[in-house]
């Protein structure tokens, strides 16, 4: 076996894991507090990438400002969607949330397709990160290493906010027992909008990070989101630590599986999901309280 290829695959796995982690983290936070499985999460990721693309094309605003501006813009859109649409469905059968968020996905994908075509648009790698570094016998793009480091940083900051701040305390309390949290004087509904905005901002951030690596295309989120749902199931629905750990774990396992046979890449993810569902239905890090 070629050691250089294995190490490249290991890092590719971490890069994929970084995207799974950011996306499943947002899904976990949103599900925890809103009890909504956001099927539009892949479309939100795609919108993040297009927001970065449009900022560059229309206003000449580059990657670094876009890393902040695109998630904020998408989060504002998320606030409008939560206030106008999602809010009306709380307390109804979860099927309605599914229909709404899935419908939003189709709408957003087709709207982008109408405007930009199916092929997608290239997005330049920022100059500062355009080089490659030697990893043993092979060279590896610096930008990809940046993606791993930056998403780890975002995950750690999110973890810190959840575990150590008052916002996080309210999120944990509302996730565990929403009604009791209201009775203890917390206006849970007011926090719901903020939590949804943070969740979609994380997806949009992943989209901006993806733009220089992957084509900015209307369907870029649709395949990724299916794998992300597998990650969420494996990590445990609503579990923050589970989402991040399972994200990186699965990214690496799938990429290393591809070393043996490229077809293993996706098989491993779903085989692992089946095993976890059989042995630990609440997920690796899921608990009955959180699920």
């Amino acid at each position, binding site marked *: 076996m070629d050691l250089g290829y294995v190490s490249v695959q290991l890092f590719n796995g971490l890069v994929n894991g970084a995207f799974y982690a950011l996306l499943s983290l947002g899904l976990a936070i949103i599900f925890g507090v809103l009890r909504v499985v956001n099927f539009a999460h892949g479309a939100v990721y795609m919108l993040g990438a297009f927001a970065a693309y449009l900022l560059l094309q229309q206003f000449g605003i580059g990657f670094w400002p876009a890393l902040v501006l695109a998630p904020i813009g998408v989060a504002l859109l998320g606030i409008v969607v939560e206030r106008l649409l999602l809010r009306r469905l709380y307390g109804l059968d979860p099927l309605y949330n599914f229909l709404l968020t899935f419908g939003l996905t189709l709408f957003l994908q087709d709207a982008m397709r109408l405007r930009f075509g199916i092929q997608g648009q290239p997005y330049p790698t920022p100059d500062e990160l355009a080089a490659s570094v030697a990893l043993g016998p092979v060279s590896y793009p610096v930008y990809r290493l940046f993606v791993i480091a930056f998403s780890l940083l975002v995950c750690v900051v999110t973890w810190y906010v959840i575990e150590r701040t008052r916002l996080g*305390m*309210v999120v*944990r*309390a509302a*996730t*565990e*027992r929403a*009604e*009791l*949290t*209201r*009775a*203890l*004087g*917390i*206006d*849970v509904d007011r926090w719901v909008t903020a939590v949804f905005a943070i969740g979609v901002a994380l997806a949009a951030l992943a989209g901006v990070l993806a733009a220089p690596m992957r084509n900015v295309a209307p369907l870029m989120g649709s395949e990724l989101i299916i794998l992300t749902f597998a990650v969420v199931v494996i990590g445990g629905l609503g579990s923050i630590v589970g989402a991040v750990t399972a994200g990186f774990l699965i990214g690496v396992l799938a990429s290393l599986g591809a070393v043996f046979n490229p077809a293993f890449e996706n098989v491993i993810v779903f085989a692992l999901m089946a095993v976890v569902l059989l042995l630990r239905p609440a997920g690796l890090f899921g*608990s009955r*309280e*959180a699920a």
Partner: protein
Amino acid sequence: MLEVQNLTAWYGQAHALREVSFEVKEGELITLVGRNGAGKSTTLRCVMGLHPQMSGRIRLGGRDLTGLEAHERAHAGLGYVPDDRGIYATLTVEENLMLPPQVGTTHWPLERVYKAFPVLRERRRHPGTKLSGGEQQALSIARALRMGAKVVLLDEPTEGLAPVLVQQLRDILLEAKHDGLTMLLVEQNLRFAMAVADRHYLLAEGTVVQTFGNAEIAAREHELLRHLGV
């Protein structure tokens, strides 16, 4: 302090409460006694704003709470100690204490809570549900004191506690009462109710059938115990 007038509640089509009225004066501790299913917990849930299928009027210190959301009622000064104690597994003991906002001028500072309940200080960084049943009950009451509630609603706090812990709980409630706290207690344990409360309302099939003082309870204990099915 707390006035409940003509409280009627439903679960779907079925009546859970009919025209329940009672009053808790400032500094009083009164109990609602009755068998399982008599509507005691439902009464507390209606007062707290957790059971929307209701009619009637609920006033706290002259302020009409009817129509307010649960979190607004908490801000108005209602503390809630639910029947399962309501301790969060994903919050530490200290976070469990600090979760509710401070709502009154009479709130207990954290130091005072820890002085009264040293075990909570010892275990303040542990997850709330790692405490024993009695410690969780103390935490739940301490949380209501910390937030500075004017009236605390307690739903069967003695349930599942060992006798020695029931005694501790009695001391805690008597101390809080001595401090001037107003409390509404749902209780099946008559001896405990007599030891802490000023007056008692007997609920049966969703209505208040009688009110008692402690002397009457003592005199008619056997009859009441039979009624309660204990």
